[in-house]
């Protein structure tokens, strides 16, 4: 009887809490805690072994250009080291269950190092632990800092810091007041959650800025455009757009342009997505806060250090940089496709054009 009552109360409380669902995963304190944790040293002695090495890469997904570039950075870095014999890549196609199977398959193929980016961190936590127990070090590439027993080290990009940089630059360009909309990636992903969090944290310092609506464009340019067209209809005045993902920013900007309202809006920095860089070059506003694809390269370097028994910390931040609109010329490539990323990859490692 008591149990039932507790169940009922918990359910009621939960549903009440749903209405107030607030940030649970990443806020400023979590961010600071993670930065501190990242600096801790890792005991690499148990992973040290002689070459040649086989690297396994478990890609959560390979169907977007960012991860393709990150993977190319992995290949590039691997080619620079003779002791790396082979790189085996699996693609989970955005399916966490498959990623679990993929990692199990990689373990059985006797890899020495696992580099991965997750579809969902929590889902693969236990299979990663099994990987570490089998003596294979694991390095997470390109996502947020992962603080798990199953992740030995990280080449991480803090989506929260990225979102914060984008938000602060937008505030600066807006002059600290106005009404804005937010365009976020796929709902539920770390990127979406952390970016929105960071925005809301920064907004606390700017009481004159109002967030009209946060929308999820799923990293899809056409969808972002469609949603923005509706937002333009709903809100007669939109002064600014928070959109850290360049490929969605293009869609948003086009919607404003076609509605004849581009003059009134300030676009936030996007990332170094080439199509966005072209837009910035043409329109002179926005800029970029990079989302570095060289995270793949960093991950390989960290992995090698672990295999050689060298000193390594729990996480190495691959820092985002801000590029002002006026400097965009150095980064944009007008001859390359839109779906391309500014990087330092040598010619032979670029994805095919």
């Amino acid at each position: 009887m008591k149990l039932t009552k507790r169940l009922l109360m918990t359910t009621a409380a939960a549903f009440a809490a749903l209405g107030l669902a607030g940030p649970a995963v990443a806020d400023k304190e979590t961010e600071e805690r993670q930065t501190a944790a990242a600096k801790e040293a890792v005991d690499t002695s148990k992973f040290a072994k002689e070459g040649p090495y086989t690297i396994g890469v478990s890609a959560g997904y390979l169907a977007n250009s960012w991860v393709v570039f990150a993977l190319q950075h992995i290949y590039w870095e691997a080619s620079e080291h003779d002791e790396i014999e082979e790189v085996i890549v699996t693609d989970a196609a955005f399916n966490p269950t498959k990623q679990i199977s993929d990692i199990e398959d990689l373990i059985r193929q006797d890899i020495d190092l696992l580099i991965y980016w997750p579809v969902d961190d929590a889902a693969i936590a236990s299979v990663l632990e099994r990987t570490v127990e089998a003596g294979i070090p694991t390095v997470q590439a390109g996502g947020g800092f992962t603080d798990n027993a199953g992740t030995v080290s990280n080449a991480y990009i803090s989506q929260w810091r990225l979102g914060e940089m984008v938000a602060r630059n937008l505030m600066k360009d807006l002059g600290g007041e106005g009404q804005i909309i937010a365009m976020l990636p796929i709902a539920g992903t770390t990127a979406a959650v952390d970016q929105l969090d960071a925005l809301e944290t920064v907004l606390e310092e700017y009481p004159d800025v109002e967030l009209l609506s946060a929308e999820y464009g799923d990293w899809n340019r056409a969808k972002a455009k469609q949603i923005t067209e509706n937002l333009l209809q709903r809100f007669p005045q939109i002064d600014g757009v928070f959109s850290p993902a360049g490929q969605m920013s293009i869609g948003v900007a086009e919607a404003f342009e076609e509605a004849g309202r581009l003059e009134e809006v300030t676009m936030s920095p996007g990332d170094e997505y080439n199509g966005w860089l072209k837009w910035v070059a043409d329109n002179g506003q926005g800029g970029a806060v990079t989302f570095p694809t060289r995270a793949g390269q960093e991950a390989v370097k960290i992995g090698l250090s672990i295999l050689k028994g060298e000193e390594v910390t729990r996480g190495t931040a691959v820092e985002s940089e801000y590029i002002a609109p006026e400097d965009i010329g150095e980064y944009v490539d007008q001859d390359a496709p839109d779906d391309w990323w500014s990087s330092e990859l040598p010619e032979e490692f670029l994805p095919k054009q």
Partner: protein
Amino acid sequence: MNALVPTRDGVRRFLSAYAIVAVLAAVFLLAVLISDAFLQPKYLFNVIRQIAPVGIAAVGVTFVMILGGVDLSIGAIISLSAVVSAVLMNGEAANLPMAIGVTCLVGMAAGAFNGIVLAFSRVSPFILTLATGIAILGITQIFSGGTARGIVSPGFREFFNYRIEGIVPVLSLAFLAAVLVGVLIQKRTLFGQYVFLTGSNRRAAILSGIPVRGVTIMAYTLSGLFGALGGLALLARSGVSSTMSGQGLEFQILAAIVLGGTTFEGGRGGVVGTLAGVLVLVIAFNIVNISGLPYHLQMVVMGLIIIAASAMYGQINARSQ
């Protein structure tokens, strides 16, 4: 008896044929109640433009469904077309005719493959086109290497996004043109008649000498062609963004067609119904979006609207039988 008094049967048949128009009117009324934006021509044409890729492709798939089949590979064909055309254009205006031509051929080839396999075997179109869809998705990825290569020719997107009189985007006219072509094929060609006859009674069609296999191949090829055109429309609308821009569209297309009165059994329906179904769908999406509901409730409401519209249509139809 006065020959002009409508018979019960006649009224029922009228209702059945125009049920989807009633549904469309109801949904539109709901839309207007929620926001007066739907009364503005500029916004309405915007809405039509949004659904152009889905709508154009749906015209082709309608024929397949009247035949009693289904084409689940259409989303993949749209994606492939968008990527192939962008790569062929390669940023040069001179490449435009070639790019469009080759893309259409690619779409037709994919459709023809489906059609030939289905014409000469007894496999289920549902599974076959599902499988070819996955295979085509793979081909698209292999071809592009994962990044959406290709640069759109200058002028291509500008042309289709240009608004005549500041109100009517060319792309929405292109969609309506595709519908018109579809209606003409349906009502004025022998092929159109054959599709209906084969769909309602395949055995009788064979016995009366209709080249059923040829009709099947032609219907799926047509679907592939309109899919390619849909991919071009998608490219025009939103530029090159990803290798999977068409993914998931097949279900929207199917829903629109079935809402419009073309059923899975075949033998009935038509392109006009599909047009209405497409409009119902896009108005539903915009209703939930513009009403400011939280994102996830939007999905719930859209599902409910689809169920409700389908139920209403089912009731009207049931009563007319």
